[in-house]
């Protein structure tokens, strides 16, 4: 394995990780509330959520920015991961629910006690989720299997581009409708909620939230390193080659379908793990998390941050969500104008997102100087043309 990070990058990464994983939690835990340097429980909790979103964005980007597959179904995997862990958390509530029964509340009022009498009201497929390890395993296995089946079918018949997007959207929509059904045994529209304990700790205390924040940070860091490593290998090279011209790769003797399938499954797993950590932090998982809107949002984070980079999507996810959090409080009635307007602006004028902004400004400046020098119209350099990520027509 070659070294995939140079010295400077390692240093920056170390500093940022230290800030997130150590400094912020410490500021929350040990600095008194009155101090200016205190980070509130709310901030820790909200940023923990953003870190999970950043993981999701990395998953979307691995697929879109690096392989050229725009999936509108990544939130399905995010939600599946969330559901798998959520099921475990539901079973950890114990008798603390409204009905003080062993099974989750929604099973009581849906009369599962008579429907699944032999297991005491718990549907059989819920049984093994009492073990956290099984739940964690399922966080990875279920989305991977779904992604494998869907990906296998899609890539086998060479569905790509827009078709792939629309098809993944249909999959998500179908799954969303399925989970909305109360008979599907996953809580219907209300989903899974009112969690009490995780790994024996009270899930709602600031300490637990802090640890969840740190866990999200660690997860983000590892996913980042994984993606970083992957994209620097030969595999990553082929990946990008597929994005830029799949046919040429195909004619060079590579089975592109296998590559795409692998990336798709990997991306699904990344999203799912992000979802699994997201759920205990927000305290609810329900089918609207897998609506197509959510997947679109994740794609937009990547676009805003700058796709085809690894830093971009993370910045995008965190900044868009922070903006949303702030605007829904400060401009409760107008924030959609701001958000929608921003998306349009970014797509039109910032094809490489926030990350690409310095380069773009530089180019603009160069053009401006150029024009001044020659005193006439410069040759039309299309600054809005995105650097990578578009597929040339073969």
């Amino acid at each position, binding site marked *: 394995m070659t070294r995939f990070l140079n010295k400077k990058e390692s240093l920056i990464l170390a500093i940022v990780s230290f800030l*997130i994983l150590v400094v*912020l939690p410490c500021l929350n835990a040990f600095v008194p*509330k009155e101090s200016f340097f205190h980070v509130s*429980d709310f901030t820790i909790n*909200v940023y923990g959520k953003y870190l999970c979103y950043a993981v999701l964005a990395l998953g979307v980007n691995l697929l879109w920015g690096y392989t050229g597959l725009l999936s509108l179904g990544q939130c399905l995997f995010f939600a599946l991961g969330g559901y798998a862990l959520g099921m475990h958390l539901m079973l950890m509530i114990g008798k603390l629910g409204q009905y003080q029964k062993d099974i989750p509340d929604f099973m009581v*009022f849906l009369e599962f006690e008579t429907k699944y009498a032999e297991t005491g009201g718990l549907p059989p497929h819920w049984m093994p989720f009492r073990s956290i390890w099984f739940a964690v395993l399922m966080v990875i296995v279920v989305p991977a299997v779904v992604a494998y089946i869907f990906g296998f079918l899609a890539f086998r018949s060479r569905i790509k581009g827009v078709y792939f997007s629309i098809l993944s959207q249909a999959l998500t929509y179908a799954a969303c409708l399925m989970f909305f059904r109360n008979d599907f045994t996953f809580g219907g529209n*209300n989903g899974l909620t*009112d969690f009490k304990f995780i790994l024996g700790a009270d899930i709602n205390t600031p300490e637990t939230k802090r640890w969840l924040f740190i866990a999200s940070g660690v997860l983000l860091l590892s996913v980042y390193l994984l993606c970083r490593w992957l994209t620097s290998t030969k595999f990553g090279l082929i990946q990008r080659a597929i994005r830029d011209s799949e046919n040429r790769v195909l004619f060079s003797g590579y089975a592109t379908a296998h590559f795409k399938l692998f990336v798709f499954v990997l991306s699904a797993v990344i999203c799912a793990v992000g979802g699994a950590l997201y759920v205990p932090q927000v305290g609810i998982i329900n089918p609207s998390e897998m609506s197509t809107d959510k997947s679109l949002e994740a794609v937009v984070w990547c676009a805003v941050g700058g796709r085809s980079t690894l830093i971009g999507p993370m910045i995008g996810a965190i900044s868009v969500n922070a903006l949303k959090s*702030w605007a829904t409080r400060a401009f*409760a009635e107008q924030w959609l104008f701001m958000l929608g307007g921003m998306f349009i602006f970014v797509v039109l004028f910032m094809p490489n997102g926030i990350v690409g902004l310095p380069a773009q400004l530089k180019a603009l400046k160069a053009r401006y100087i150029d024009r001044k020098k020659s005193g006439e119209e410069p040759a039309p350099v299309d600054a809005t043309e995105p650097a990578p990520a578009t597929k040339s027509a073969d």
Partner: protein
Amino acid sequence: MKSMFGKILGGVAATMVAFSAAAADTVKVGILHSLSGTMAISETSLKDVLLFTFDEINKSGGVKVGGKPYMIEPVVVDPASNWPLFAEKAKQLLEQDKVAVVFGCWTSVSRKSVLPVFEQNNGLLFYPVQYEGEELSKNIFYTAEAVNQQAIPAVDYMLGEGKKKFYLLGSDYVYPRTTNKILKQYLKLKGIPDSDIEEIYTPFGHTDYQTIVASIKKFAAGGKATVISTLNGDTNVPFFKEFANAGLTSENCPVVSFSISEDEFRGLPAKELQGHLGCWTYFMSIKSPENSKFVKDFMAWLKAPKVTGTSYNVTGIDAKGRVTCSPMNLSRMGVYLWKQAVEKAGSFEVDKVRTALIGQKFKGPAGEVTMQENHHLVNNVFIGETLPNGQFKIIKTFNGVAAEPFSEKFLK
């Protein structure tokens, strides 16, 4: 970069930490209703009526604690019909804005999503929309109709009218499911056989009711049939258009809807709905001095909306063709009950207010309401027939029905 943003947020919070009571005689109160997304259709009106009520209270001297008046200062957030965002916004209201009380939520799932937040922070939430029950939190007061204040009286009325066949139609989510489950048990108790009960669910945003209406037509062919509808607001238009076009009317098969109030009615074809029934604890057409004042003042307020005594800038008010309805009235009842309890307790502290709330009475537009120990109201229940002008004509009144959230208790 990231931590800097956190700092800014933290800084904002720090300035807000200055405890509300200490600040120039105002008390912060949160409004947690979706102003965008799918639920904005219903929830925006509740935000309006809450702001109106705050203005009403502030105008008459605010909330008096220890002889000192406090102006209510609204903190409005938009959880955007997004359930995790509801939890986040609730947390923001409680932990950062330090509001004394929150009025909000419409769907059950949003309430479920914020419930742990309120319990963890020992906050106070008033929930104003009819719901399925089966829940009781010490931090939530349900001014809403419970199933035995809406579905059961309505079915009783229909049974009294000689109806023998019941078609239970609902959107596929928890409220209809639970309500219908309870109704089925109840109908069985009343001697209606299973074969005369049909139970059908449609997805959210369903627009094609041809098949369902055809099956209702068949179901109602033998007469004495009625539809009990728990369809959510949005899907009622396609349903009723189809229903009316199929030649079904309130004469040959009346529909009792639990989710259509005057406010939803604004988007519905009144012609098609005439004569169908609704069941609520308030109708705009109720004739009482309190109600005429409420309606008159609210309409006047909409034209010049403001919250007296605060710098809050009211925007986004749509003043055309507005009405009042049960969830709106119950939102307002909640504010008044809270005000009375605060004044009785002499403090904004949640624990004291909670104790003081129990047994609190208030004479509102629809008569007197009493907060019971189970955090639900004793309220008058009305059955109304829809009129072509979008109002309900009250045809039956049940006085002083005590809400009971747990169905096992009233099914016995």
